[in-house]
């Protein structure tokens, strides 16, 4: 079961997403407390992080962390202006309010990409081991 971490400032949004994603057979954790995020991610090993654009610092921290940087980030934003996400690293974006079928497509495609990348990464690793 693929794990998804939802980071949002709105408890209701997180609840609803968890409820819906679990029915789509994902395992979901959520948090709004930015302090425990790096530890949470390390323990959880999510295949995808859905995070609100307001949590800019958290996103930056994830992308700066070598171990976590490969986890795809789906940015959720209520800002229609692209200026807002200019300095935020992300893999895909969904604007609020969003359609669930579009969300589902984005989630599936990001997780698929992540798996491919992960496999490549693993084979890189084994190559590296072999070279050693």
């Amino acid at each position, binding site marked *: 079961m693929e794990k998804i971490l939802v980071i949002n*400032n709105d*408890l209701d949004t997180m609840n609803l997403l968890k409820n819906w994603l679990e029915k789509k057979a994902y395992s979901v954790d959520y948090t709004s407390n930015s302090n425990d995020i790096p530890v949470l991610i390390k323990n959880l090993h999510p295949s995808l992080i859905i995070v609100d654009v307001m949590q800019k610092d958290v996103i930056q921290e994830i992308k700066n962390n070598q171990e976590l940087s490969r986890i795809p980030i789906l940015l959720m934003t209520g800002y229609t202006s692209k200026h807002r996400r200019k300095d935020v690293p992300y893999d895909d974006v969904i604007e609020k*309010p969003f359609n669930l079928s579009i969300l589902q497509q984005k989630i599936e495609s990001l997780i698929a990409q992540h798996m491919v990348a992960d496999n490549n990464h693993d084979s890189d690793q084994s190559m590296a081991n072999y070279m050693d």
Partner: protein
Amino acid sequence: MSITGSDPQGFNFFDALFKLTRQNSVLLMTTDGIITDVNDQFLNSFGYTRKEIIGLENRLLFTKEDQVKGLPERELNNVNTRGQSNDNNYLVNKDGHHTWVSGESVLIFNQLHETLILKIIQNIQEQKNSEVAITELNVLNENILTTIEDVVLVLDSQFMVIKSNRALDGLFKTEHPGDKLNFLALIKPYDRNNDIKEKLQSCFSTPATYTKAEIEAENNSGELKIYNINCAAMNNSSDNRNLLVVIHDITLQKQAQREREDIIGFVAHELRNPLANIVLCNEILNEAIQQNNQQEMVEMLERSKNNVMRLNKMIAELYDATKANAGNLRLDIELFNFRDMINEAVDTVKGLQPFYNIIINGDGNIITAGDKYRLIQVVVNFLSNGIKYSNGNKVVLLEIQPGKDHVTVSVKDEGLGISPNQLPYIFERFFRAEKTKNLEGIGLGLYLCRQIIYAHKGKIWAESVEGKGSTFYFSIPLKQEINN
């Protein structure tokens, strides 16, 4: 020049000049300056009778200052040695009134071959007045140009600055201060796509055009500024046209505009939270209907309704804040029982948050004047904040302290608390504590509370220890002036 008595043709030119001229005062005097005769115009202009003036010294017609400077003597000396003297100066009439005149004195000889001085005096006070006016106007123009903060430049056809006011100093950071300035070279580093260059050039080529451009540039102190550049071709001759350029600093307006856009963006973002939830609920509801999942259908409808209420509350706050900010927060003053007002507020909060325990201390059984529903809004806000930031602690304490002419309410929670560096700003618009950014709200609640309490001529404040909890207070007078 010399005139002798009557001329060969039989006309007396001297008499004609002397008696008939109305434009000029004419006087005759001896070579040592004793007046021997004057024309009628002189009597008109200087207010003397012929009897009074004849025998007086010419020097008495000069101002005291000019007498001290020796002007009358200089005149006599000039005319006696060179035959002619010419000067512009003030002369004084019998009443002491000064008139600016142009005087010309010449030596003449009469029939008795005596040498006399003829002095013709022209009143040029009006010219003097307009000269003074023009000088004053020029000084005024220069002063205006110097004092205004806008930069005013005149450029020649090569875009060289041929005239500028002091505001130009330090406008742009330049490598060669003091050089003869080429305006295009000056703005080149900031005119990325040559937009301004093209505009200025087209302004030159078409007469009577006006153009406007905006430029972002670094000034002499290294600050980034935004300027508005207005220019117009000045219509001299067609082949020698100049360009008038006025540069106005609009940095502050631009900042305010950006701030406004930021706030609107932020508010829109926050409003989309409940909206997104409603859309989510609807889609999940749709799936629930297809699966005939009754329980989820009911739950989604309920959650959708809650988000609609939340959205509505945010919009109401926003509207109130706009009104309060413009100072138009109208109070409907009435007399009411203070405790009833508190009870209504507590009931509202308990309806929304039944699991929290709100303890009320103190006697509020007093009649108070105020806007009851606005005050309920304040109490509800204090209590909701107490709950929202309670960090799981389920007790909120409300205390009423009636005084002689004031009543004070405090709401104490044992929640997250507010850090000392943020505490002074919590009543500002769009303020939200760093730690609580992940809780709902657009940061208008406490701002509105402050505006409501201020409208009641009351006080509002808060005390807090980070990690231990906060206490919010307001105090209002028991009596209110009814001013609307």
